[in-house]
């Protein structure tokens, strides 16, 4: 018994006694926390594609900001929001539908970023920006991601209730006298900021996974917004921890392992969630049918 405990301890805890692993764990968990918080708003507003667009469109902004020696998060916010505004303008001024406009704009921004990346020679590995680089975090990168994630958390903390109303019912937000233009901007800013916060962990290409999956898991697991958010955060951090371990033991890319574990967690909730899971629905459906058979009155379906 004590032997197997020892094996688990060796496999799951001891790797984090290495400095680089411990650093990767807390940086990854911080990024996961920020993304999971914002993710609940994104998923409930139906903004997954907007999230995808922003997370990809930050690339040219990051590189230009680096060239101009401006904080990366400023460049990321400007270029991410510019992309969404451009798509919105195209959508309003033409017969192009919103998702098509977004698709065109963000791939345009991404391509521009990739060209900038290949022409600008620098000592910064921009490939780390694309795929993440959790096992070699520099002091500067740590500062960037902490400030970006901290700002996103601050925005959500101050405007939590308004953002939730904006996601649930934007018309009511407007009628209640809230400034929906500002709320729209704040949510877009949060998307850009959390992309920066998770850049080290999973990279730009996979950032959308961190921005969508925790919210989806939370929605499946709970009928309360805050509870769902807590569950999303927990699932996201669990994914970082176990993804890192798998990457460490099997010598794989940590970013992809984290995303893959998160995907697996999502599938598990989809099947096994006690509230909206597949199995629970099957079980409830069977029970409802049997109770209807026993009832003398026709049951009105809702």
């Amino acid at each position, binding site marked *: 018994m004590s032997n197997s405990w020892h094996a688990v301890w060796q496999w799951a805890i001891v790797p984090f006694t290495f400095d680089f692993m411990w650093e990767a764990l807390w940086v990854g968990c911080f990024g996961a926390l920020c993304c999971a918080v914002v993710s609940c708003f994104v998923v409930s507003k139906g903004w997954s594609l907007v999230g995808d667009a922003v997370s990809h469109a930050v690339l040219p902004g990051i590189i230009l900001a680096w060239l101009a020696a401006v904080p990366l998060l400023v460049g990321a916010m400007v270029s991410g929001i510019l992309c969404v505004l451009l798509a919105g303008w195209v959508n309003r001024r033409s017969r192009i539908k919103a998702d098509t406009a977004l698709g065109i704009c963000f791939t345009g921004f991404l391509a521009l970023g990739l060209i900038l990346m290949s022409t600008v020679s620098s000592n910064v590995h921009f490939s780390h920006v694309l795929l993440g680089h959790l096992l070699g975090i520099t002091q500067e990168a740590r500062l960037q991601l902490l400030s970006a994630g901290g700002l996103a958390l601050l925005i959500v903390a101050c405007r939590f209730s308004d953002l939730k109303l904006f996601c649930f019912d934007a018309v009511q937000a407007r*009628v209640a006298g809230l400034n929906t233009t500002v709320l729209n901007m704040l949510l877009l800013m949060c998307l850009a900021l959390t992309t920066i916060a998770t850049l080290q962990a999973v990279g730009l290409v996979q950032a959308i996974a961190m921005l969508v999956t925790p919210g989806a898991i939370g929605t499946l697991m709970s009928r309360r917004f805050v509870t769902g958010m807590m569950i999303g955060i927990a699932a996201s951090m669990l994914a970082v921890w176990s993804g890192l371990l798998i990457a460490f033991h099997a010598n794989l890319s940590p970013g992809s392992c984290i995303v893959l574990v998160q995907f697996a967690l999502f599938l598990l909730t989809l099947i096994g969630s006690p509230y909206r899971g597949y199995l629970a629905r099957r079980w409830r459906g069977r029970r409802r049918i049997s109770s209807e058979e026993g009832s003398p009155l026709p049951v009105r379906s809702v």
Partner: protein
Amino acid sequence: MRTPSLRGLALTANNGSIAVDIQHLSVGYSNGVIALDDVSAQLPSGAICAVLGANGGGKSTLCKALMGIQRPHRGSVRLFGGAVNRMLKRNTIAYVPQSDDIDWDFPVSVQDVVMMGRQGQMNWLRIPSRDDKRRVAQSLERVGMQAVARRQIGELSGGQKKRVFIARALAQHARLMLLDEPFTGVDMTTENDLLDILREERNAGTTIMVVTHNLSSVPDYSDQVMMLNRRVIACGPTAHTFTATHLGNTFGGVVNELLKVTGAVAGEGNVAMSRSQLPEYPQ
């Protein structure tokens, strides 16, 4: 936030004054559809006004223009004498949306939804005060939904859902209440309860606009009728306006045919219709 005494003051000041003033309003969409064409109408405050029109007649567009969501090409809307955007900041409109416009899977409870009516009047961090909680509880009680206050909204029946959103509008305590198709998918008991509540609100001085394509019981509850078919067909007190001619012009041939079938006298166009004469407008 307005206190009851201020509200009473506003009531006496507004009695007989104009709540909604629409002047030459034209609204078009980017795909070339003109939804409203030179609409002018005035609705008195403290009355229940039914806005009638067929699908595509511009009712929803009028709602959007009243809430400043759709910007007009020409013309203007004034609420209680002020521009829309300024009046929205002063908690002028409470809106009850169509059931189709709500995400029923959203993880919020009934109580949370009703609290959203108070949102614009809370402090900066949106922490509900004792007064907010009291108003939410009162509104839930008025619509008879306090027993399900902690349920998730998707777990309610059609009538209950409608009651919850009426409660939200009541909690907001605005001067103008705008209801979009409130009687669609609702049983008779709920419809009667809602009408009672609307009458109570009207008697307390609230102006109420009911946007609907469902003609039954319109003469029972409305003081004013406005008929829309891209343009204003008719607007005025129900007794003079709710006539077969106007209905025919608003809804096209369908109503004329139905009137013949139900035996109503479509020829006597200037006589106001009673409820028993009314056909059910096909949905």
